């Protein structure tokens, strides 16, 4: 698992208009993992993917695919990589079957109708194989884009915002598909706005902000490392405001005064919970439930982005 199938070294990109999209990104992508790249719009996620796939020229740095430079050995690299771009760009007048077959040929694989049939069935596109692209709904087009990327049987798959503008059902289908692909040994790199998606799918998560990789780690480790926990105290009687004696804990009221929320750092030596409990007893505030929960990636993400805004 630890072997890097793609190694990105000091990757830089400055566009002609002066925008510095990537400021020296280093990133190892491990064989067989699902890596989610999170980041706000314009952070450089798509630029990173497009450089690896050969669509954008890097200003500096390099990418190694199995230890080989991706430009010098572009055939090896590209034959192994499949890309599902963010935009739904398709040839309006091509049929589903012909556009997927075209992609297979384009990536240097001999015609194999059985394989195309298998891929179309897997993506529930088989019934639509004779339809022209312009007749398809957005969700169906998205499936075709994935089928095109899979047509040459790549072992590395880049999914750029795969579920943007996709309905819930298709999103679930796509998650299933990604899991199956991973089970078959495909390495998957996805960018997403949906934290839920990263949380649900990824083994590791990277956060990109303004062209820099600001966080990278095992999803669980990242959450534990950066995560805060929240203690929720459900009160017997609702209160109108946080009782004055509790001000040092910076509590928040929730559920119309029925719940007190206390955020604490799970790694701190003194998390303040015993003192809070004692104080509640002292003030004779009755409660009937206690619950703690780990902050989600979304919380981490929001705090990272806030950090940046403050900086």
């Amino acid at each position, binding site marked *: 698992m630890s072997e890097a199938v793609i190694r990105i070294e000091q990757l830089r990109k400055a*566009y*002609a208009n002066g925008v510095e999209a990537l400021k020296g990104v280093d990133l190892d992508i491990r064989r067989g993992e699902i890596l989610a790249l999170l980041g706000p719009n314009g952070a450089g996620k798509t630029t990173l993917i497009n450089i690896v*796939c*050969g*669509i*954008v*020229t890097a200003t500096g740095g390099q990418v190694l695919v199995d230890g080989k430079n991706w430009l010098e050995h*572009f*055939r*090896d*690299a*590209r*034959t192994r*990589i499949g*890309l599902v*771009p963010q*935009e739904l*760009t*398709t*040839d*309006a*007048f091509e049929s589903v079957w*012909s556009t997927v077959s*075209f*992609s*297979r*040929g*384009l*990536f*240097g*694989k*001999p*015609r194999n109708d059985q394989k195309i049939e298998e891929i179309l069935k897997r993506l529930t596109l088989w019934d639509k194989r004779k339809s022209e692209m312009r007749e398809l709904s957005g969700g169906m087009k998205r499936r075709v884009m994935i089928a*095109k990327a899979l047509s040459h049987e790549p072992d590395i798959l880049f999914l750029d915002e795969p579920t943007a503008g996709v309905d819930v059902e298709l999103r679930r289908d796509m998650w299933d598909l990604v899991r199956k692909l991973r089970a078959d040994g495909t390495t998957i790199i996805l960018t997403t706005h949906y934290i839920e998606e990263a949380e649900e799918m990824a083994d590791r998560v990277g956060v990109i902000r303004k062209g820099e990789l600001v966080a990278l780690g095992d999803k669980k480790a990242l959450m534990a490392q950066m995560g805060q926990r929240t203690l929720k105290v459900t009160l017997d009687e609702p209160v109108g405001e946080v009782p004055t004696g509790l001000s040092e804990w910076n509590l928040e009221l929730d559920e119309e005064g029925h719940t007190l929320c206390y955020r604490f750092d799970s790694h701190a030596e003194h998390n303040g919970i015993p003192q809070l409990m004692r104080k509640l007893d002292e003030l004779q505030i009755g409660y009937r439930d206690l619950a703690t929960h780990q902050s989600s990636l979304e919380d981490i993400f929001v705090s990272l982005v806030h950090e940046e805004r403050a900086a």
Partner: protein
Amino acid sequence: MNVHGVKAIYRFEMARWGRTLWQSLVTPVITTSLYFLVFGSAIGSRMSDMAGIPFGSFIVPGLILLSVLTQALMNASFGIFFPKFTGTIYEILSAPLSPIETVTAYVGAAASKAVILALVTLATATLFVDVWVAHPLLMLLFLIAISVGFCLLGFAIGIWARNFEQLQVIPLLVVTPLTFLGGVFYSVNAIGEPWRTVTLLNPILYLVAGYRWTFFGVSDVPLWASVAVMAAAILLPLAAIVWVFRTGYRLKS
């Protein structure tokens, strides 16, 4: 060498042509046939011979080229412009294809269409006027060379163009007038100075004259000059395309 990739693009481009056959083959053949009909059959008999050739026959090679040059430019430029326009170019750029393979596929397809168009037009011409081909093999060779040259130019225009207007400007505003004034309808020796000298500055004259030579064995200009212009018509756009792929100009950001 990615043979499957080249074939995929070639087939894709030929299929696109097949879908628009009326626009890309039937229409130019009919348009050109109107010239044969009017200038050949209808008023050709009242015109004097040109360089010893009946007027109706004289205009055939030039009219074929007029149609070939325009269609070669339009087709080749559209072939690469459209994926750029719709965004499907991402797939071509991310495919394991070398620049040479990409160009071979697009230009090969566009040139095939141009050659087919020329041959169909020639066959149609025989319905209206007397045509004979003195050097059939050279006729084909010249035709292929000229088609490849203009398809390369079209490919370069397709990469350069930012919108549909720019795509049309060169074929319609540059090549069509130059071809019309490039001795399609007259021998350059039949016109007086200074227009004779001006006409000799038009590179397309040399293509028309050379191509006509393969039909009738007579030419207004030396054959070597025609061959030189043909070579330049291939090498100059090729150089531009090599530069495009080296720098990524308007192809990659």
